[in-house]
């Protein structure tokens, strides 16, 4: 408990220290702050009692905050949220070190806000109270908006505002739904309570028609954050304009809040709605995969390409989640962590060459294997991890997501019936081919091929800190932990898979019977599912 709060609050303490302290030491203070946060969380994970048993949330009690509204400061982890929090805490110091040379102006504000960002992300993952979660979830937006709007590219203001408003709009749906469930709880019991478990129990008791709307509203909220197909357009712009470290955290930690929200709220709270809408969401996810992949193919901006690839990858993650069986759910959770690692690393790599050439246009720069062999090696490694090469981390999640989708239709045997099936997997699998296509094209342009460099040396000289041609020690030190993590998770996924399994089962606890109900309904009326879909699309 103490450790969790340390990991949440210490960055904020460090942020104050950064604000008060001298400009020179700001970056080291920030680094130390994130390290302590990571250390505390690691220590907590080391002694975490629930890695291997299904005991529900070992540490969940917390002091009351607003007693008559039933809001408490309760934090605690299950393995999934712990993994995601660890991922965020792990990336934070790397991002801070990665910003040493990129951020040369207004450094104090930058590191201060960055620490606040890290803190709020961990808070969102750790929260056991829905309102506390909402606070962490929403508060990430403030520092991120500032980081993009102040330190970003040429269109940073537009990007920051669009990101803020868009995701804010989405989370309003989420908040409204949470409050609604809290209200239902009050009607039933007579007192407010926003404990997530309590809310889940309340929500699952609602009639299925209500759950349908609860789920739909949750989905709207989280789909913006994930982002799912028609609601994704804020992401490429934000990524394109954000500074490198901002992109990393945005892709690796903040987008995970969306999928995590589905895992923690939408799916377990409204199983009837989930069962009704699973095929709809799956179709959207598949559209996201294909659509974003195709767009990636013709992107010339390296960062935008990675941003769109995030859309595609998280589409696959959502597909796995909505396969509603343990294989898919395991894959999806695994994929959340993996995507964080590999995409974060890719953003870092691109940031590193951007610092040297001040362009991300793959038509202008290319063939850097000759100029920056060390960088090229890392880039190739992370790209392969992102493609999903077996033996690296990306593969496990991708394969399980796809496999979960494939076997979803197989009733009875797995204990988890579903309505997706081979055809969904076939279409989504095309995404795998596309992923190889666009990422290899990126590699082919950026890393391989004859050397192409922009000719204006002005760009080099204006850079405040002169960087060596290839990566310096600091940059290698950033990428190496990520590379090790990518390889390690690819070779030894077993401990993590075992840790996720009970959580996945718990999340899916209500699904077999709900899906069967849905299937028996739609069997009675063949058009039911189609009607459901059109209703839903109208609702959105």
């Amino acid at each position, binding site marked *: 408990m103490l450790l969790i709060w340390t990991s949440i609050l210490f960055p904020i303490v460090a942020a104050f220290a950064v604000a008060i302290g001298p400009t020179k030491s700001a970056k080291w203070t920030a680094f130390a702050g994130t390290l302590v946060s990571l250390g505390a969380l690691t220590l907590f994970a080391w002694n975490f009692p629930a890695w291997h048993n299904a005991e529900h949330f070992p540490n969940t009690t917390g002091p009351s905050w607003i007693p008559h509204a039933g809001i408490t400061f309760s934090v605690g982890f299950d393995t999934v949220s712990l993994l995601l929090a660890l991922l965020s805490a792990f990336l934070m110091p790397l991002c801070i070190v990665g910003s040493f040379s990129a951020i040369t102006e207004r450094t104090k504000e930058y590191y201060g806000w960055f620490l606040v960002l890290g803190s709020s992300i961990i808070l969102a993952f750790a929260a056991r109270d829905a309102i506390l979660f909402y606070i962490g979830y929403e508060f990430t937006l403030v520092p991120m908006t500032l980081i993009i709007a102040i330190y970003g590219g040429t269109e940073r203001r537009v990007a920051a505002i*669009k990101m803020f408003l*868009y995701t804010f709009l989405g989370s309003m749906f989420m908040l409204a739904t949470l409050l609604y469930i809290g209200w239902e709880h009050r009607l039933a019991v007579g007192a407010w309570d926003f404990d997530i478990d309590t809310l889940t129990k309340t929500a699952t008791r609602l009639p299925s028609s209500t759950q349908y709307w609860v789920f739909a509203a949750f989905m709207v909220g989280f789909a913006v954050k994930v982002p799912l197909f*028609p609601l994704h*357009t*804020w992401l490429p*712009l934000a990524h394109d304009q954000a500074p490198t470290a901002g992109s990393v955290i945005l892709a690796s930690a903040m987008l995970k809040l969306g999928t995590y929200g589905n895992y923690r709220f939408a799916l377990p709270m409204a199983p009837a709605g989930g069962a009704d809408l699973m095929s709809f969401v799956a179709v959207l996810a598949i559209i996201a995969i294909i659509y974003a992949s*195709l*767009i990636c*193919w*013709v*992107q010339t901006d390296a960062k935008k390409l990675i941003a769109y690839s995030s859309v595609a990858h998280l589409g696959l993650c959502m597909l796995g989640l909505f396969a509603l069986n*343990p*294989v898919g759910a*395991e894959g999806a959770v695994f994929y959340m962590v993996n995507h964080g690692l590999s995409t974060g690393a890719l953003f870092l790599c691109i940031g590193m060459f951007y610092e040297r050439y001040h362009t991300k246009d793959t038509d202008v720069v290319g*063939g850097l*294997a*000759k100029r920056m062999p*060390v960088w090229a*090696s890392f880039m190739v490694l992370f790209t*392969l991890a992102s493609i999903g*090469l*077996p*033996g690296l981390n990306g*593969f*496990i999640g991708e*394969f*399980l997501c*796809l*496999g979960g989708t*494939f*076997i979803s239709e*197989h009733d009875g*045997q*797995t*204990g988890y019936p579903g309505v997706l099936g*081979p055809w969904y*997997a*076939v279409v989504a*699998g*095309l995404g*795998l*081919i596309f992923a*190889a*296509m666009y990422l*290899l094209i990126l590699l*082919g342009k950026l*890393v*391989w*091929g*004859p*050397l192409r460099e922009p000719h204006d040396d002005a760009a080099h000289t204006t850079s405040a800190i002169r960087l060596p041609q290839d990566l310096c020690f600091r940059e290698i030190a950033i990428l190496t932990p990520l590379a090790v993590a990518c390889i390690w998770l690819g*070779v030894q*996924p*077993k401990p993590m*898979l*075992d840790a*996720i*399994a009970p959580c*996945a*089962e718990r999340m899916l606890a209500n699904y077999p019977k709900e899906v069967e109900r849905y299937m028996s309904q739609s069997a009675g009326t063949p058009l039911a599912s189609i009607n459901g879909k059109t209703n839903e699309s109208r609702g959105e």
Partner: protein
Amino acid sequence: MVGSWRIMTQLTSIPQAIIAPELSWVGLALLLPLLAAVACALCCALRVKGKAAAIITILALAASFGIIVKAYFAYTGPVQVPIFQWLSFQWGTGQFQSFTANCGMYIDTLTLYWMLFVTGLGTLISIYASEYMEGDCGAGYSRFFFGICIFLFSMSALVLGDNLIMLYLGWEGVGLASYLLIGYDYARPAAVAAGKKAFIMNRIGDLGLALGIFMLWANYGTLQYSELFAAMNKGGQTSVDWELSVIPFLLMLGAFGKSAQIPLFTWLPDAMEGPTPVSALIHAATMVTAGVYLIARMYPFFELHPEALATVAWIGGLTALLAATIGMAQYDIKRVFAYSTISQLGYMFLGLGVGTTFGACYHTLTHAFFKALLFLTAGAIMHGFAGQLDLRRLSGLRHLPGWRIVSWTMLVGCLWLSAFPYTAAFFSKDAILLKALTSVRADFRFLGWLGLFTAALTAYYTFRVWFRVCAGPLHFEPGAEGHHEPHDTHDKHDTHGKPAPALAAKSTHAFHPHAPRWAINGVLLILALGALVVGIPGYNETFAHKDNWAQQMIAGSSAMEGAGLAEDHGAEVSEAHPTVLGMDAHTGLTVVGCTASIGGILVAWYFHLRSRKSADQLRAALLRRWWIRWVPICMENKWYVDEIYHACFRLPMWLGAQILSFGDRHFLDGVMVDGLAKLPVAVGKIFKPLYGGALQGYAATMAGGIALVVAWLSWVWLRGFN
């Protein structure tokens, strides 16, 4: 029509594998290449100038080979060796409530058979490459061997793995190695593009394989070979369930991608952009046979649908013919060999399809040797003549001192490739064609004849190369590139193979081709010897009437199940069709095969040695006649397959992607999102005059607001009263 369908119930059981953790030392065959890869990567990182990477690689691969040999002699029966738990978890206790794909090995004769030539050839080709790549010392040398080690590791994982996920790991891993090595010379866009193409086309096949794996899991609940075979042994899956029957087709797609069959064959010729040892090892001898291995390994499952194997056969036969026709019209030596590889792989698939796994696997073995040999000789020529591979610009190399070993070993390779009577390939190809020709199915017999015709074409284009390059008057022009040839190495070579003074006058830039040294020559000789040795099982069977070693190896594995039974079945029906051209099947085939082979060679001799002009005349004559001119044009342009793919798939998709990209930015984001965001602004503009800054505007808003609120309140109250 013989459905293997009906045979299903007669399956003899596949020997059940026992779990033998004590055999885990075989895992060193996996581990060593991986460690060597790490060492090579370190060499790369430390920018080692010497040949340390090559030495490490050779030692590791040789040790790996040694381990496999030891395992071969220690072999008693199929075993399953667990190593560590990889991708596995469970959520229940039932059969379908766990997902298990551990890192482990499944060792049976098929595994050993494959591993023997994979590691053996890997070692030899590494030795060859240690000399071949020496020009890149300090630049890409370590990277090259890193790729080789990764490849060997992946290939070993593919073959040794005890479940399909391990196979998939190896499957993608060899794809990666292939990608890295084809694009080894990354400054050349063509090489990069070829690597990319190879990876992506393989990925298409991989998707099929992955889907097949899912389907297997969905229906059998396991991916372990031993458990899958046990489930097969139980039989019972005779119901016509579309899910079961689709399994072989999905797996087949993977095999077609990896083994460059129609429709996924176009990457292989392009892959020749890679360094020649890579072409020899990966794109001729080992990796491309992974498809054959997959089908052989999963052979029982290919009988889940009656037409699955027939599809394999047809694809194989057609690919063999198509690739041979293209190969006839190519001028680049490596491309000719590449198409011949596709063609020979087609034979293997034909063999698998018509039911002789033995023939297919035996052909894989022989092909590995002679094709590696051919590629390595081509590589030696390319190495010596600064990248020159155009067979019109090289001639009579056997007269050149220092090039004799190359010329004669190349002849061995060519004889073997053209299935010259009583060479190893003759036996292996015969095994396939015999099976096809004696099949009860008419279409298989047709494919057999097609295969024979292809054999004649093969003999022709093979010897077209040899007669052009090695025979005839001495003449050569150097190639354009000398990229991995630092100048100082030239002089060193001159002492070894001194070119004749007359040659210097002939070549334009006073060019000195440097002849290969001991490593290349030695490897060529060993391979030529190997090509002879792998014929021994064939000799034994044909002349000594002993047991065929290769057949025994295959028979001991899962691959034999279908084959053995189909053979029995074939023997039974061959009463009705005992003959080929009226003779006993064996004799008839020997006669026909000899005719095809020797006929092809003679034609090649006439057109490409005796009267080289007549070849051009023939071509011109064909081009003059409108009704036949499409044949040479199509053959020279590879039947426009690349172009068709481009027009049918790549271009529409690319256009679609452009449209989507534009739509995403300007419609979805521009119109929908930004438009929605502009709505409040537009509404606000209506009221904007009120907020021009004048105080009264704000006051008026206030008054209006109060009026509205009061109106609403009074309305509510009035309703409440009435």
